C-alpha cells in the first residue's frame, strides 16, 4: 500500500518529470542540491498540510469560490514555512529568496488541492500530499545534483572533480531546461522499456 503510493508519487505521477508541473521553481532553485532539497521539503510540508485542511473542508467550500479558498489555505501554510525558515534557516531563506513565497502559486500544490484533496478523504489526501511532495523533492534533487556538478563543479558546497572547469550554462536557466529535458527523456525511455518488457 505505502509502496504503491510512493511509486505513484515518485514515478508514475512525478510532478516535474511526468506531469511537467511546477517547472518555474524547479528551474530557479535546482542550481544546487541544498537549495533543491530545501525547496522540496518546504513544498512537501505545505502540500501535505494544505491537502489535509482542504480535504476536511471539502464539503463546506462552495464550488464557485473554491480556488480562492484553496489559495488562502495554501498561503497560510506558506507564510508559516517562510517565517520558520527565516528564523531557523536564514541562509537557505536568502538563497531561495522569492521562490518561498511563490510556493503559494505553485501549480503542483493547487493542482493536488483541485484534483485530489477536494474529492477524497482526509487520510488519503495526507498520503497523496506526502508522496507527491516526495516526488517533487526527489526530482528536484536529481536535477540539482546534475546542475551543481556540471555548472559549478561542486556537490553540497564541496569540490567535485579536481581540474574540471565548470560549464556556467548549467547554473543558468537554459542549462536548467536542458537538464529537465534530458532527465525527462531518460525517465520516459525507462518507462517505455518497462512497458515493452
Amino acid at each position, binding site marked *: 500500500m505505502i509502496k504503491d503510493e510512493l511509486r505513484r508519487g515518485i514515478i508514475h505521477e512525478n510532478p516535474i518529470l511526468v506531469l511537467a508541473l511546477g517547472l518555474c521553481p524547479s528551474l530557479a532553485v535546482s542550481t544546487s542540491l541544498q537549495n533543491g532539497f530545501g525547496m522540496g521539503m518546504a513544498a512537501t510540508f505545505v502540500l501535505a498540510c494544505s491537502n489535509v485542511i482542504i480535504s476536511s473542508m471539502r464539503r463546506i467550500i462552495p464550488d464557485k469560490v473554491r480556488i480562492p479558498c484553496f489559495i488562502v489555505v495554501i498561503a497560510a501554510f506558506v507564510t508559516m514555512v517562510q517565517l520558520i525558515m527565516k528564523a531557523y534557516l536564514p541562509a537557505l531563506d536568502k538563497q531561495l529568496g522569492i521562490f518561498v513565497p511563490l510556493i503559494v502559486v505553485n501549480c503542483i500544490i493547487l493542482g493536488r488541492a483541485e484534483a485530489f484533496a477536494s474529492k477524497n478523504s482526509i487520510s488519503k489526501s495526507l498520503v497523496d500530499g506526502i508522496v507527491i511532495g516526495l516526488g517533487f523533492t526527489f526530482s528536484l534533487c536529481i536535477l540539482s545534483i546534475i546542475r551543481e556538478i556540471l555548472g559549478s563543479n561542486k556537490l553540497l558546497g564541496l569540490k567535485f572533480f579536481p581540474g574540471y*572547469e565548470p*560549464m*556556467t*550554462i548549467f547554473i*543558468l536557466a*537554459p*542549462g536548467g531546461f536542458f537538464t529537465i*529535458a534530458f532527465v525527462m527523456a531518460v525517465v520516459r525511455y525507462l518507462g517505455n522499456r518497462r512497458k515493452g518488457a
Partner: protein
Amino acid sequence: MTTPSVTRPKPDFQSQVNDVKRETVSLHISSSPHIRHGESVRGIMLWVIAALIPSLIASVIFFGFQALFLTSVSVISAVLAEWLISHLLKRPSSTGDFSAVVTGLLLAYNVSPLLPWWMVAIGSVFAIGVAKMAFGGLGGNFINPALAGRAFLMASYPAAMTSWKATGFGSLSGIDGITSATPLEYFKSGFSGENISELQNALGNLFIGNVGGCIGETSVIALLIGAMLLWYKKIIGFRIPLFYIGTVFFLFWIFNGSGDVFSSRALTIPLYQILSGGLMLGALFMATDMVTSPITPTGKIIFALGCGILTFVIRKFGGYPEGVSYSILLMNLFVPHIERYTKPRIYGEVKKRD
C-alpha cells in the same frame, strides 16, 4: 509550378501492348516531388566544405597552426558525436552525408583561436547532440547547430570565448598568445568618434582578415571566394546575404552618430561594420543554412531583414560587441512563422475575402 517533365522516352504503342500482354506493366507510385535532380545532401555538403577551405587557409596564415588544430578537433568530435548518437539510437548512421563535418567546421570558425581544444570539443558535441540529433538529425533541427554550439560555449565559458589573439602576420612573429581587441570591441569601447581615419586605415586589414577575431570570420576575401563557389553552384541564394549585409550597412549608415549621411564618416562606419566581426561568415554561410532558413523568396528577405536589424541593435545598443550569432539564432526561431505567412499562392487560387 512547373509541369513534371517525362524523362523516360515515350514507349511506342506496340511495346505498350506487349507490356500489357506480358502483364509486366510496372507502375511507379510515389508522392511528389517527381522531378529529380542528381544533387544529393552529400554533394551539397562537399561543396560547402570546399567553399569553407579558403577561410581555413586564411586562418592558418593569420593565426598559425593552432587554428587548424582547433578546426580538426571540432570536426572530429562532431563526426564522432554524430556516429555515436546514431549508433546509440539504432538509427542508420548519417555521418556519410558530411553534414557533421560542416557543423564542426562552422563551429570552429566561430571560436577564438586561443580557446582550449576540449572546450571546442564540448561545443561540437553539444551542437550535434542537442541542437541537431535530439531534434531528429539533419533537417529536423530548428536552429543552426554550429551557432547553438557557439551560444552554449559563450554562456559556459565567457572569459575563454572572448580572449582574442593578435594576428601573427606582419606583427611580432615567434610569440604566440598575444591577446588583442577585435575590431568590434575597439569600435565599442576604444573608438571615440573623432579619429575616423583610424577606421579608414583599418578597412584594408579587415578585408584580408589581418585582425583579431574568431578563427574563420576575419578574412572577408576568403569568405567571399567560398561564397562565390556556392553562388555558382546555386547552393546559396543572393537574397539572404544581400539583404542581411545591406540592412546592417544601411542602418549603420543612417545612424552613424553624426546626423550627416554624406560625410566620409557616414560611409566609413558602415563599411567598417560590415567588414568586421562575424557578419560575413554569418550572412554567407550560416543564415543561408538550408534547414534553418525560410524556403519562400519573400520569407528569405524578411528573415534577412530581421537578422540585419537584430545585428544592428545588438552591436549598437547591446552589451556584447558582436551580435551576428544571436541574431541568426533568434531569427531561426521565427522561420516556421515566416514560412506560414509567406506561402505563395497556388496558381489560379482566388484570395479569400474575410
